């Protein structure tokens, strides 16, 4: 009984607090329309409030998903009446520290907001912190800054723990109840998102007995470069004669692995799965080489990232735990503490779509 009282009291305090916050927001922003949900929390509908300059910084510019994300950001900018963000970044994803230069240039330009998919670990943190010190919100999407230093909020495509579970489920589905050996083909060793997914998958494997028959034999890195990924995939085949599956949580790795297995005629023995783009994977899914893979919409991710960055830059929302907002066609989201990191805030987009021969076309 006393626990219920505490919960009610906490809820009441929270409602009061958010009401207080939103009323102070009212005085600074006149354009933000506010509605109230049944629970009493204020929802800020992010709307056009003038044009801002911004930098949309992908891991690199030559991988299909990043121009897709940028097209989402362009769509959002157009809706909000803002100018299109500059889409700049390293030419090659193997260049993990190349983003520092682009981040620093954005600060020099004094842009209104920076949206980044971090390709390094905390190596980007000092330049992100410099942006924050200059009053520029840094919204990460796709891949966060692990320490959250300098970062306002992370737009997570899906829950990272769920990614691990989805990959484990796909592995079990493909290898069957008898299980078998599989290996992971990742991007760069420092890619924060990939590492979190791999860790989550390892955890999922040990957490549930139904995965006991699955044996993860190795994790290798293709650096999100097609040739490197093919080389690594073939090396796995040589090294593990009993390998049944290559799990690649990267859109570059999964295509490279599927291509390599198809060319070598190994698709009967070794299947490919992971995170892939339907456009690039269709042929391999229909051939049975990659029977299942999963992904989310990168267009939506870029769209949501722009809305949040714009909302923060124009003062309509604050990057704080519990802030709820409405982002155009995608609807309502809430900023929360990021449960997958020690520090930092996140907005969870979701959901996952698992593709197979039935829905890939």
């Amino acid at each position, binding site marked *: 009984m006393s626990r219920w009282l505490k919960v009610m009291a906490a809820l009441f305090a929270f409602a009061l607090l958010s009401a207080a916050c939103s009323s102070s927001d009212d005085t600074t922003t006149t354009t933000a329309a506010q509605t109230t949900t049944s629970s009493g929390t204020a929802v800020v509908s992010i709307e056009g409030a003038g044009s801002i300059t911004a930098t949309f910084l992908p891991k690199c510019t030559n991988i299909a998903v990043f121009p897709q994300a940028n097209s989402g950001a362009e769509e959002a900018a157009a809706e909000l009446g803002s100018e299109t963000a500059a889409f*700049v970044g390293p030419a090659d994803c*193997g260049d*993990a*520290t190349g983003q520092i230069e682009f981040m620093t240039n954005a600060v*020099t330009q004094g842009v209104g907001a920076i949206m980044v998919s971090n390709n*390094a670990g905390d190596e980007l943190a000092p330049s992100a912190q410099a942006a924050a010190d200059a009053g520029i919100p840094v919204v990460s999407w796709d891949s966060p800054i692990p320490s959250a230093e300098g970062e306002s909020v992370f737009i997570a495509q899906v829950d990272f723990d769920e990614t691990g579970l989805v990959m484990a489920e796909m592995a079990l589905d493909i290898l069957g109840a008898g299980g078998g050996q599989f290996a992971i083909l990742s991007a760069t*060793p420092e890619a924060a998102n990939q590492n979190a997914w791999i860790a989550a998958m390892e955890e999922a494997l040990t957490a549930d007995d139904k995965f006991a028959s699955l044996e993860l034999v190795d994790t290798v890195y293709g650096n999100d470069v097609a040739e490197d990924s093919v080389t690594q995939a073939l090396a796995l085949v040589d090294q593990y004669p009993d390998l049944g599956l290559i799990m690649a949580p990267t859109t570059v790795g999964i295509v490279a692995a599927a291509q390599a297995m198809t060319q070598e005629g190994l698709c009967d023995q070794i299947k490919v799965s992971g995170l892939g783009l339907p456009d690039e994977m269709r042929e391999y899914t229909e051939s049975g080489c990659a029977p299942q893979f999963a992904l989310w919409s990168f267009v939506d991710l870029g769209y949501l990232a722009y809305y949040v960055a714009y909302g923060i830059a124009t003062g309509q929302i604050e990057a704080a735990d519990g802030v709820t907002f409405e982002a155009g066609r995608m609807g309502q989201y809430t900023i929360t503490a990021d449960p997958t990191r020690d520090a930092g805030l996140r907005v969870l987009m979701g959901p996952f779509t698992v593709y197979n021969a039935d829905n890939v076309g």
Partner: protein
Amino acid sequence: MRDWAARHRWETVLGGILLATIVVNATLSPFFLGFGNFINLFWLSIEKIIVVVAMTFVIINGEIDLSVASVMGFSAAVMASAFAGGDIPFAVAIVLGLLAGAAAGLAQGFLIARVGLPSLVVTLAGLIGFRGAARVLLEDRSVGDFPEWFDRLGQQPLIGSIPLALIIFFSLLAVAWIILERGTFGRKVYVIGNSADVARYSGVGVSSVKLRIFVASGLAAGLAGVLFAARLGSVRGSLGEFFELDIITMVLLGGVSIFGGSGSMLGVALAMFTVLSIRNGLGLANVDGIIQTGVVGLLLIGSVLVPNLLEGIQSRRPAPEP
């Protein structure tokens, strides 16, 4: 002044290119001509240009060092793994990293200067070998969590808005200029670069000069590796990968002959500033990284073509009457 320009034709041309670059950049972006941006311009590539200073000696001496970027990675990896091992103070780890760079230079220099192997082959092996060693030391990990003072030195300004690495670079540049163009050692470097045989017959200690230059090159690469680690806050096996291309580009663009024997520190300094300005200016104008590389490539081809063309035109002209 005209005299100086005639004797330093390439430096004069470079000065013109640099001026044009600055004017174009300033029109492309209002942010280019800021003091803070000039600091950033050097800071973002400081590790490369520190190595460029040493590379100038190597190439004027008629040799090449392809291993510098790998030695950067190797030195930083030695420092990081010595530190991660636990018990030794971080300052000792830094010294170990620097020594690793110097040792890499010494080993390669010995094979080139004493054994007489071609530097292209020896340092190509070094490029592969030291990168391999860095990757073996660190595997696929990134080693970080260095002491706060180290990260601060790498990431924060030291005096006013000037960071430590810039102070080190400009001091090195000044010292290198004096050694190369105002001292006997520098004269030997040129003489050997022109003709090692002539130098040997004139009693110049060819192999000892070459050895010292390669040790200096390794040490500079080691220093650059340690500074890069401080700027990034962590070290991975791939640190500095492919930097050798940019480094050699800047030296050649500076008018240093790939066959040795000619070139000046001023030319190289102008080339550095030009390349960095182009990258920075195009970056501030939101021009893609691929195009930036293309522009620098064109400039390098031009730098080889133009002096040759000028020479051709001059030799076709009838010689002035005595």
